[in-house]
């Protein structure tokens, strides 16, 4: 339903669901961090588990904040009937998760080698 000041209310609702999806992604990463600290407290080296847990929680925090920033930019573009701006949040999140996975792989390798 286009109105003079807004192209379509469905775009706003879809953008809002995208924000909520980012927030749930952040929540899942935070939960992963808590789970690592709880269920794998002695991973690899002495501070390995805590480092992975903190990295996951901070990545989740970043996903929530980044998703909110992206929501604001998208909403401004929708209201102005412009194409959505490119997202830098998604590649940043992928890079962070990939880095954490590399660290986890190294820690698991240390664990296996020690027997």
């Amino acid at each position, binding site marked *: 339903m286009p109105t003079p000041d807004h192209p379509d209310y469905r775009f706003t*609702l879809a953008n809002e669901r995208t924000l909520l999806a980012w927030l*749930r992604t952040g*929540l899942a990463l*935070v*939960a992963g961090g808590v789970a690592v600290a*709880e269920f794998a407290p002695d991973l690899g080296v002495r501070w390995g588990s805590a480092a992975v847990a903190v990295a996951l929680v901070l990545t989740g925090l970043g996903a929530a904040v980044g998703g909110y920033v992206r929501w604001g930019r998208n909403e401004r573009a929708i209201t102005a009937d412009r194409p959505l701006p490119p997202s830098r949040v998604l590649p940043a999140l992928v890079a962070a998760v990939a880095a954490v996975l590399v660290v986890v792989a190294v820690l698991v390798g240390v664990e296996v080698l020690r027997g």
Partner: protein
Amino acid sequence: MSGQGREHRSEERARSGAPRGSEQETSSGSATGPAPPGGTGRTTSARETQPERTVLSWQRTGLGVLALAGLLARAAVTDGAPVRLAVAGGVALLGLGVLGGLAPLRAQRVRRALDHGTAVAEARLALAVTAVVVAVAGAALVAVLSPR
């Protein structure tokens, strides 16, 4: 002309929310007529399911916060940390606030905006739910960093 009339009727049927093929059964009645202006509670202003999906998304987010609260509570109990158990309780209250507060509030606001044809965007609700997740992440950070 007859084709035009049929098109018009099918549009009315779409507006009143009656399923396809129901015309035969109710053709003598007025049930397939246009929805009364303003709505009487039997129909909504929505023409599709986006408002419903949006509210379900709010509910899932609240349930996600509650699930994380459960995980934090379990970790606090197994570590024997009463302060962290209280923090987990606070996280659970935030999750209930999203599930039972923000989600139905959002549903009501969307319905009202569609009824009145006003803007559906709610910047303050978006900021509120983001703040909840940030606070929950902070609580989890404390739980992860606390010595065990």
